[in-house]
């Protein structure tokens, strides 16, 4: 299939040249994916996809066109290409334009494909069985969740001479357990490789939190020291690292607008990395969408912003060099990791006089990206911590604060890191529990 995919990409690049475009790149992705959804402790649907998508970058006299097709055949792409050439003549020069990079030798990544993932694409129900059985070892009422497996082949060709292909597998699972009255817990895992034990552990953690969070009590609004689980911190950190995309900075969608590498943006304790070459995490890749070799890099180290994420266009615009994070238009992180601290969760709890442990959240929204003003709602288990001990399960809360405050007020990081990926953490992340001082907690007034 790789040769066939590469042929599709190369043919498109040739065709673009014939049509009259100065530059082009074509990324063909063939995906086989199976997802089993669980609800009320049984499968609700098993979904399978076998699809080819072809994304093409075209440039004519510094004008930029992006085409995305799930084509039934290539003739439709060619026809559209011809139409778009007419359009290109009428577009003004893109302020983002920079030439596609010349080929640079790419060192392939080993270990991106796990045969077991490919085999389980045919039969994912045994993993669902593991999840349901493990969750019900605790006294829960039901479990819901998703088991998601994929095999992805990608082939990139560019008019500057790049011709690359790569295969990878991936897997994510997340489980949410319910225990009456009103208890619930959720956890997730992900990897390039199948990890049945990871599914079991995610189910057990979800079920444990579900049982422990029954019989919720009220809590007062105010400032609390908050321990965020990797699920919660992963959600806020994904937002943060996406804001480090130079495109988002240019578009006014980032709290790093007006900041520059070298600026202090977080607590000394925080180290955040983009790790495309970490083959444990399922967005690992050896090259980006421009064919530039990827490399692992610190985004924030010792609280200092080390780099924005660039493709060749944003780099050219901002006088930087590409970081291998293309996206032809917008650079994006591949996998996010956080440097560990030295505390166990119990030790972290032990150091909190009056605080809250939040195990999961959702619906994070910003009222102002530039200032990082946000709120997010807890879901699942939330616990009050008093004098170094978890004292009660509490009702859902809302955290309403500024992301810069969250980053600056990091007090401690856990020594164990967890692979997290689910609905609200879409970039695979490996990170620990984290303690943050003085987080504003609110709830309804009527």
């Amino acid at each position, binding site marked *: 299939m790789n040769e066939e995919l590469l042929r599709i990409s190369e043919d498109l690049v040739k065709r673009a040249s014939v049509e009259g475009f100065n530059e082009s790149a074509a990324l063909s992705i063939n995906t086989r994916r199976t997802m089993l959804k669980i609800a009320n402790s049984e499968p609700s649907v098993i979904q*399978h996809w076998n699809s080819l998508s072809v994304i093409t970058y075209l440039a004519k006299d510094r004008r930029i066109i992006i085409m995305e097709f*799930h084509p039934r055949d290539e003739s439709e792409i060619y026809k559209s290409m011809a139409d778009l050439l007419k359009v290109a003549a*009428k577009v003004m020069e893109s302020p*983002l334009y920079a030439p596609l990079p010349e080929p640079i030798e790419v060192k392939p990544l080993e270990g991106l494909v796990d045969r077991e993932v490919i085999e389980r694409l045919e039969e994912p129900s045994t993993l669902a069985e593991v999840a349901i059985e493990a969750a019900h070892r605790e006294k829960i009422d039901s479990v819901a969740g998703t088991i998601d497996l994929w095999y992805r082949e990608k082939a990139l060709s560019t008019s500057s001479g790049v011709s690359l292909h790569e295969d990878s597998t991936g897997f994510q699972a997340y489980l*949410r357990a319910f225990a009456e009255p009103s208890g619930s817990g959720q956890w997730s895992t992900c990897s390039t490789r199948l990890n049945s034990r990871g599914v079991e552990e995610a189910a057990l953690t979800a079920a444990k939190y579900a049982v422990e969070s029954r019989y919720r009590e009220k809590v007062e609004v105010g400032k609390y020291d908050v321990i965020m689980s990797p699920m919660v911190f992963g959600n806020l950190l994904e937002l943060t690292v996406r804001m480090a995309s130079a495109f988002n900075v240019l578009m*006014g969608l980032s709290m790093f607008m007006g900041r520059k590498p070298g600026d202090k943006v977080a607590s000394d304790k925080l180290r955040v990395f983009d790790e495309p070459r970490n083959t444990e995490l399922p967005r690992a890749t050896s090259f980006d969408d421009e064919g530039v070799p990827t490399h692992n890099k610190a985004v924030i180290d010792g609280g200092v912003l080390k780099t924005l994420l660039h493709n060749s266009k944003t780099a050219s615009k901002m006088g930087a060099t590409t970081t291998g994070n293309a996206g032809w238009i917008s650079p994006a992180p591949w996998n996010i990791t956080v440097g560990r601290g030295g505390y166990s969760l119990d030790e972290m709890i032990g150091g909190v006089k009056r605080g809250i442990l939040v195990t999961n959240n959702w619906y994070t929204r910003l009222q102002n990206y*530039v200032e990082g003003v946000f709120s997010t709602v807890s879901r699942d288990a939330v616990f009050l911590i008093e004098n170094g001990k978890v004292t009660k399960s509490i009702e859902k809360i*809302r955290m309403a604060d500024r992301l810069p405050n969250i980053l600056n007020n990091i007090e401690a990081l856990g020594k164990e890191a967890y692979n997290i990926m689910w609905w609200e953490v879409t970039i695979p992340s490996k990170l620990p529990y984290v303690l943050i001082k003085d987080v504003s907690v609110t709830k309804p*007034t009527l």
Partner: protein
Amino acid sequence: MLRGDVMEDLVLYAVDYARGAGATYAEARYHRNSLRSIVSNNGLILGVGSEVVEGIGIRVVVGGALGFSATNRLERSSIKAAVDRAIAQAKNALRLMKHPVELAESRLGRAKYSVLEAKRFDSLSFEEKAGFHSELWKALSRSIGEAKASALFVEYVESFEEKAVANSDGAFIESRVPRIALFYNLVITHPQKGSIQRWETLGASGGLEWLDKWGLINKLEEDAKTYEKILLTAIEPPKDPIDLVIGSEIVGLMVHESCGHPSEADRILGREAAQAGKSFIKKGMAGENIGNENATVIDDPSIPGSYGFYLYDDEGVPAKPRYLYKEGVINEHLHNRWTAKIYGVESNAAARSMDYKSEPIVRMANTYLKPGNYRLEELIEDVELGVYVKSYMEWNIDDERWSQRYVGLEAYLIERGEIKDFVRNPALEITTGGFYSNIDAVGREVKFYAGTCGKGEPPQGVPVWFGGPDVRLRKVRLGVSVA
């Protein structure tokens, strides 16, 4: 787009083959989403986009298990392979099933319909559409005085959604819906006063006639002047309980979030529990009170020109208005044929799918609060001390759809029945019951707003409208906006 007869042949082949291979129910949907977009920053065109997502999605029920399979290879052999896969995987899951999936009997359609653009997309040249972006930037820039227009990101999208749905119970629906949408983000900054940011979406079904209706250049000029005044002059909102007039934009979002979503029967039954969550509404709660007589919320897919428009859902069921809350009572849920079977009712045509890769699930279309009799001036005139919140920035709601929060952008102090100063970032943090039980008066004019509603796994974003009139609540304490 495939020729009609080819499309029909493919979906009917998939259904017939699936039935022959052991499916007790089979459904096939040819689905093509095509769009053209123009993206700009500060009036300069960053790029042009063209997208076609086309393929076939197949659902089967086998022995009580549900399988879904999608492919964009549209020859018969690929479709056969996709059907075989859906059937095999459903069979594999059977041993874990406790409650077989069954579908309610429904009156299904055999129909073709098409939404026509009053003004076709090709009636404006590309240069004119690109020029519109720079006009928007000029409008924003010239409207700002002391502050600075720092960013205006605009995405203009014209699209077509074309489908052919067939199922083994006899439905056959062909449809074509054009849509137009504008997404924009503006940032206004001031060295001492900070910044203000506004995301807005305009969307509808139809063609370029909507650009005339929206009058965005004038709107942006007016809005920019207002936002600058807010940035420079807004005062803190009152801390004590006050009367609150909530503008239609927020009312629309509130009914979408706190009535539409919790009324989705699949959510109530726990099918989305690990993703979008559950609902404070439990099975059997229809008939219970949720608010006062002013709380009537309707979801209607058939509103002409609406962003969420359709006449038949993706299971072939004819669309109609759904009265979700009626005069303060939980009245009717949103159903597909699976939830309808469990509830012992008929489906009310809420099954929608984003594209060929997506299974049809229970969704809203166009959700709004029923209007009352008040003009805005009448809502305000007897308010001694209050706040009128017209638009919002940030919002969220918990996963059972009970505790919600909206932070206002354009908001005014009301004193002795008159609109006065701007107030800064008033935060309304309220429960669903608190909102619907305290609506004291309802405006007479419904306005609709466009959005992309997210649900499902993989996530499906579908176009919706939400709307309503302005409403008044008495004695509400505004919450904390930000530390």
